[in-house]
C-alpha cells in the first residue's frame, strides 16, 4: 500500500500551501487516478498518480486539461430560474438568479406532488462522464420509486450491444486483449488502449508495451485513426458490416481450416447441448436440464451427468424420438453460407484477406497449450477479438458483437492467459475483510450469471417480457438497456397502445446535454418540451439548459468527494495481472460562489421530499453497507459521512475517508485464479442463443395484439448479418456512409469548451472536419477544405469542411466526436466549432433494433457543396 501522506501535507515550512493531492479524473468515464498540484490555493498542474493502478501515472490530454474546465469563467456559480415560460431551441430562458432555498423548495414541491401521484412520473438522466454518479443518482431513483434512470446519449450510443454481450459472454462491462500475453488481436471498431474508454490510460500503456513486445494488432475500421494508425494492419470496411466479416472469419476457421477448441466448447459453452426442431434445448423429462449426447454411454443425458470430454459436438441423434443436433453442429452448418466471398460483397474486405486473417488468428491461438503464471498452470490462448462502439453502433449491434465474440469462443480464447478478457469479472475480495468478493455462477441450465453487474438488468438470464411500464419499453424489449423511446416522437403512441397509467412529468438531469447527445435536435427538443418541469445540475449552460426550469451549479470533479470513483472493478480497473486498486476522489479545490456538490443536493432534496429513510436504504443496498456502517433510519447524512462509512465497511475501521485522503489509494495483488477465472469456475456461455426463441414468442404475444410489429429475423439463435437502414438506401446521389468516431482528445460534448482541447483540435486536421477519401472526393470534384452539406435521406442536413485523406474507406465520411455547439450562452469557445453529426440521426423505431433497442448511428448521405453545385 502506498503512502502519499508526505506529499499531501498541505503546508510547507513557510506555511505556504503547496500540495499534491491524490484524486480521480472525471473528464471522461475512464476516471483515471490523478494528483493535483495546488500552490497557494491555485491548481497549477494535474498529473497521473503513479501509485494507482488506474492510469499508472499516465494521463491523457483530456486529463491534464481539467484545470481549464474547472477554472472556466463560464462555470455556473449560482442557482438560476427561467423567467420565459416558453421553451424551444431558440428561446432565451431569461435566467434569473435565485437562492438555494427558493430553488430547492420549488423542486421539492414538484417532486412531492408526483411522488404522491405516481413516482414513475420522475425521469432521471445522468452523464456517463462522472462514472460514480450512478450510485447517488441510482439510489435517489430507487428511493423515490421510479425505474426511470438513464445515461442518455452516452449510454444509448455505446451500451446496448457491447455491454450486453460482454456481460453475457465475459461477465464484464467490456472486453480487452490480455495485453501482457496476447500475440494477435483484432479490434473491431474499438479504440481500447488508445487513450479512450474503460481503464483508458492504463490500457494506453499496456497496449503500447504489447505492440513493442510484438503483439500483432489488426484493426477493422472504416477509418484509420487512433487505433488503426498504430496497428500492424488496418482493414478498412464498409460502415456497419463488421458482423458479416466476423461470421466469415468464423466460417473459415471451423469449416475451411477445421480449427476450433473442442474441449473448451464441450466444457465451457452450450455447444454440446442438443437442439430440437423447435430451436430449443432437448430437456431431460425428470430434471428439466438440457441434454447432451454422451458418446461414452451412447445416450442422451442431462449435461450435468456427462463428462465434458464425452459430450458430442457433431452428429444427429433421436433421443425419445426427437430429432436433434448439438448446438455446435447447427452453428457449423449455419456458418457455411458466410463465405469470404459473401462477406467481401457486403464489407468490401477482399476474400483472400479474410482467409489469411482467419488462418493467422486460428493458428496463433495455440489451441491446447498451457502456460505458468505466478506458479499456476493455466490455459494459454494468446489471441483476442474485441469490439466496441464502432461495430456496436448499428441496428444489428447484438449479432455484430455475438459474431465477433464467437471468434474468441471457437478457439477458447476467453478469460484465459493471452485471450479476450473481461475487466475483472471475479474478485476474491479484500484479504483483510473478505469484502468485495464476487464471481460468476451458473443458472439451472449451467449458463453464466455475471458475478457483478451495474444495473438490475443482468445480461443473463434474459428477463421475461412484460406489458411495458417503463417509458423506454425496456420491460418489453428486455435485451435493451437504454432506450430511444424515451425521446422519440413515437413514444406517446406506444404508451397509449400499452395503456400506460402515467406520463413522464419531471426530469431531473445531471450533466447530460441530451439535445446534442442522442440524435437530431428537433426530435429530442419536442420530447423535452412535454415535461412539466425540468431541473438540471450542471457546471455550464448548454443546449439542453434552454429547456430547464431551474439550473443548479455543481462542483467540478476537482471539488468533489467520492468513495468509489472506480468501482465496480469490471468497469475501469485494468484487466490482466497486477493489483486490485481502490482510489478515492477528494477535493483539490474548494467550491466557488454558491456551488454545491450534487450528492449533497440530492440528500437535501430527499429530506425535503420526505424520503430520507428510503435514500439511506438505497445507499445501504447499493454499497452493501453492513452494521455498524449502515445508514440508519431517516437520519440526514452528509455525503462525506456516507463515503467514510463505505470505506470503513470495505477496508476496516481504521481506513475511513481521512485515511484515504492521506494515502490516495489502497492496493492488493491479484491472483491468477481471479484474472484467469474461466478455467476455475464451472459456468458455460451460450454460442447457441436458445433463449431467443421463447423470448420472441413472449414478446410477440404482448406486442403484436397491440399493433406493434416484431421483426423475427432479429430473434434467431445464431447470428446473421442484418443490414442497417443506410445499407438499403438506394436514392440517387446518396453514396456515402457517414459515421462519427470518438476523438481521443474529447469526451462526450462538453470538452469542446475546454480551451486547451479546442486548441489541440484546431491543430488536428481532422477533429473539426469531415474526413473523406481523397480519391472519392476528387472523382466528385470535391476539394480540400471545401464547405459542404451532408444530407440524410430524410432531408436533415449538417454543414462542415472536408478533409481529404487516404485514411478512410472510399464510401465513408468520418466526423469527430459530438461537436458543433450552438448555444449562445455558457460555451462560447465550443460554439460553432466542428460538426454536429448527431443531427443526421433519426430517432425512431425504424432506426432502432427491435431486439435490444440499439439506435442506428450511421447515415447514408448526399454531399453537396455549400453555395450550390461544384
Amino acid at each position, binding site marked *: 500500500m502506498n503512502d502519499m501522506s508526505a506529499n499531501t501535507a498541505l503546508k510547507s515550512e513557510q506555511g505556504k500551501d503547496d500540495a499534491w493531492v491524490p484524486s480521480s479524473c472525471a473528464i471522461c468515464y475512464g476516471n483515471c487516478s490523478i494528483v493535483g498540484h495546488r500552490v497557494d490555493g491555485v491548481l497549477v498542474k494535474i498529473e497521473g498518480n503513479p501509485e494507482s493502478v488506474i492510469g499508472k501515472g499516465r494521463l491523457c490530454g483530456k486529463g491534464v486539461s481539467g484545470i481549464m474546465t474547472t477554472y472556466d469563467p463560464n462555470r455556473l456559480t449560482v442557482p438560476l430560474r427561467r423567467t420565459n415560460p416558453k421553451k424551444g431551441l431558440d428561446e432565451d430562458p431569461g435566467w434569473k438568479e435565485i437562492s438555494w432555498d427558493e430553488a430547492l423548495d420549488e423542486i421539492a414541491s414538484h417532486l412531492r406532488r408526483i411522488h404522491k401521484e405516481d413516482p414513475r412520473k420522475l425521469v432521471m438522466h445522468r452523464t456517463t462522464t462522472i462514472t460514480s454518479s450512478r450510485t447517488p443518482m441510482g439510489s435517489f431513483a430507487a428511493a423515490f420509486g421510479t425505474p426511470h434512470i*438513464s445515461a442518455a446519449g452516452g*449510454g444509448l450510443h455505446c451500451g446496448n450491444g457491447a455491454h450486453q454481450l460482454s456481460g453475457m459472454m465475459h461477465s464484464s462491462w467490456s472486453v480487452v486483449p490480455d495485453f501482457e500475453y496476447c500475440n494477435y488481436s483484432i479490434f473491431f471498431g474499438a479504440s481500447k488502449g488508445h487513450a479512450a474508454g474503460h481503464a483508458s490510460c492504463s490500457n494506453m500503456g499496456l497496449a503500447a508495451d504489447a505492440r513493442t513486445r510484438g503483439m500483432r494488432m489488426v484493426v477493422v475500421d472504416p477509418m484509420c485513426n487512433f487505433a488503426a494508425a498504430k496497428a500492424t494492419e488496418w482493414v478498412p470496411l464498409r460502415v456497419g458490416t463488421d458482423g458479416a466479416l466476423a461470421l466469415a472469419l468464423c466460417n473459415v476457421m471451423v469449416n475451411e481450416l477445421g480449427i476450433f*477448441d473442442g474441449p473448451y466448447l464441450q466444457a465451457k459453452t452450450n455447444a454440446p447441448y442438443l437442439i430440437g426442431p423447435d430451436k430449443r434445448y432437448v430437456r431431460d423429462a425428470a430434471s428439466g436440464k438440457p441434454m447432451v449426447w454422451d458418446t461414452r454411454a451412447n445416450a442422451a443425458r442431462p449435461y450435468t451427468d456427462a463428462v*465434458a470430454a464425452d459430450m458430442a459436438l457433431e452428429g444427429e441423434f433421436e433421443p425419445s424420438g426427437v430429432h436433434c443436433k448439438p448446438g455446435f453442429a447447427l452453428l457449423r452448418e449455419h456458418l457455411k453460407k458466410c463465405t469470404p466471398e459473401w462477406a467481401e460483397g457486403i464489407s468490401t474486405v477482399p476474400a483472400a484477406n479474410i482467409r489469411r486473417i482467419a488462418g493467422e488468428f486460428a493458428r496463433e491461438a495455440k489451441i491446447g*497449450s498451457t502456460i505458468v503464471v505466478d506458479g499456476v498452470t*493455466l490455459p494459454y490462448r494468446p489471441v483476442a477479438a474485441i469490439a466496441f462502439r464502432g461495430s456496436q453502433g448499428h441496428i444489428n449491434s447484438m449479432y455484430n458483437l455475438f459474431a465477433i465474440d464467437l471468434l474468441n469462443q471457437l478457439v477458447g480464447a476467453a478469460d484465459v492467459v493471452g485471450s479476450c478478457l473481461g475487466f475483472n469479472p471475479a474478485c476474491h475480495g479484500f484479504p483483510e475483510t473478505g469484502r468485495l*468478493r464476487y464471481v460468476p455462477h451458473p443458472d439451472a441450465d449451467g449458463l453464466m450469471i455475471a458475478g457483478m453487474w451495474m444495473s438490475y438488468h443482468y445480461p443473463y438470464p434474459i428477463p421475461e417480457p412484460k406489458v411495458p411500464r417503463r417509458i423506454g419499453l425496456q420491460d418489453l424489449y428486455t435485451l435493451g438497456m437504454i432506450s430511444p423511446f424515451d425521446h422519440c416522437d413515437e413514444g406517446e403512441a406506444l404508451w397509449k397502445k400499452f395503456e400506460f397509467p402515467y406520463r413522464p412529468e419531471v426530469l431531473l438531469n445531471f450533466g447530460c446535454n441530451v439535445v446534442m447527445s442522442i440524435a437530431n435536435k428537433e426530435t429530442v427538443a419536442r420530447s423535452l418540451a412535454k415535461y412539466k418541469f425540468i431541473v438540471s445540475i450542471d457546471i455550464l449552460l448548454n443546449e439542453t439548459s434552454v429547456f430547464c426550469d431551474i439550473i443548479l451549479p455543481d462542483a467540478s470533479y476537482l471539488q468533489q468527494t467520492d468513495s468509489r470513483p472506480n468501482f465496480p472493478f469490471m468497469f475501469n480497473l485494468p484487466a490482466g495481472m497486477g493489483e486490485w486498486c481502490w482510489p478515492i476522489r477528494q477535493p483539490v479545490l474548494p467550491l466557488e460562489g454558491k456551488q454545491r456538490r450534487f450528492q449533497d443536493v440530492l440528500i437535501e432534496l430527499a429530506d425535503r421530499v420526505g424520503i430520507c429513510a428510503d435514500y439511506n436504504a*438505497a445507499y445501504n443496498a447499493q454499497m*452493501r453497507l*453492513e452494521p455498524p456502517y449502515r445508514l440508519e433510519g431517516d437520519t440526514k447524512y452528509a455525503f462525506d459521512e456516507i463515503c467514510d462509512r463505505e470505506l470503513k465497511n470495505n477496508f476496516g475501521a481504521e481506513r475511513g475517508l481521512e485515511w484515504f485522503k492521506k494515502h490516495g489509494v489502497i492496493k492488493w495483488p491479484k491472483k491468477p485464479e481471479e484474472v484467469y477465472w474461466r478455467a476455475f469456475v464451472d459456468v458455460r456461455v451460450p454460442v447457441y442463443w436458445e433463449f431467443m426463441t421463447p423470448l420472441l414468442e413472449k414478446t410477440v404475444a404482448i406486442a403484436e395484439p397491440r399493433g406493434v410489429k416484431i421483426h423475427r429475423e432479429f430473434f434467431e439463435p445464431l447470428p446473421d448479418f442484418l443490414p442497417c437502414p443506410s445499407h438499403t438506401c438506394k436514392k440517387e446521389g446518396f453514396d456515402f456512409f457517414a459515421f462519427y468516431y470518438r476523438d481521443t482528445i474529447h469526451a462526450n460534448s462538453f470538452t469542446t469548451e475546454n480551451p486547451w482541447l479546442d486548441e489541440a483540435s484546431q491543430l488536428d486536421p481532422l477533429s473539426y472536419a469531415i474526413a473523406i477519401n481523397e480519391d472519392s472526393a476528387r472523382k466528385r470534384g470535391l476539394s480540400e477544405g471545401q464547405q459542404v452539406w451532408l444530407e440524410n435521406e430524410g432531408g436533415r442536413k449538417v454543414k462542415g469542411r472536408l478533409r481529404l485523406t487516404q485514411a478512410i474507406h472510399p464510401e465513408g465520411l468520418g466526423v469527430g466526436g459530438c461537436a458543433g455547439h450552438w448555444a449562445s450562452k455558457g460555451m462560447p469557445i465550443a460554439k460553432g466549432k466542428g460538426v454536429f453529426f448527431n443531427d443526421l440521426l433519426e430517432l425512431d423505431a425504424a432506426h432502432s433494433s427491435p431486439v435490444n433497442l440499439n439506435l442506428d448511428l450511421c447515415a447514408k448521405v448526399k454531399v453537396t457543396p455549400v453555395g450550390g453545385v461544384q
Partner: protein
Amino acid sequence: MNVRWDSVVVNSRFWAEPPSPAAARPPSCKEGTEQISVKVWLFGGLASSLDERPVEVKVLERFSVSDVIAELGRRYGDEFLDRVVGPDGRKFKHCRVFVDGFPADNVDAQVHTGSSPALVEMILVTAIEGG
C-alpha cells in the same frame, strides 16, 4: 502442447464459498416450528402503496427470505410479487433484501434463528446503464 484445458485446473477449491454471517450464527436450540413476528421495512417503490411502515408479518422462527416474500405476497397480492419475483418464483437480483442489517442473497437459506425479533428490509434498486 495440446493439453485439454480442463485437465489443467482440476480440483481447485479457490472459489469455494466462504461461510456467510448467517450460517456462522449458532443454530437455535428449538426446532423452529414456532411463529415469530418480523418487522419488514419496504422502501422506495415497494412502499408506495403502504399506509404505514414497518409492516409486521408472522413467520416460522427459523425463516428464510422466501418465507417473508411469500407472506408479503399473501398480504399484498400479485402486484407486489410481480415486482419482487420472476415467473419461476425466484427473487429478482435487483430486489435487495437485508436481514438484521446483513445482505440476504440466498433466499432459501435460513437467515434468522432463535426467538429474538428480526428486522427485514427490502428495496428495488434501479437500472444504472451506460458508459
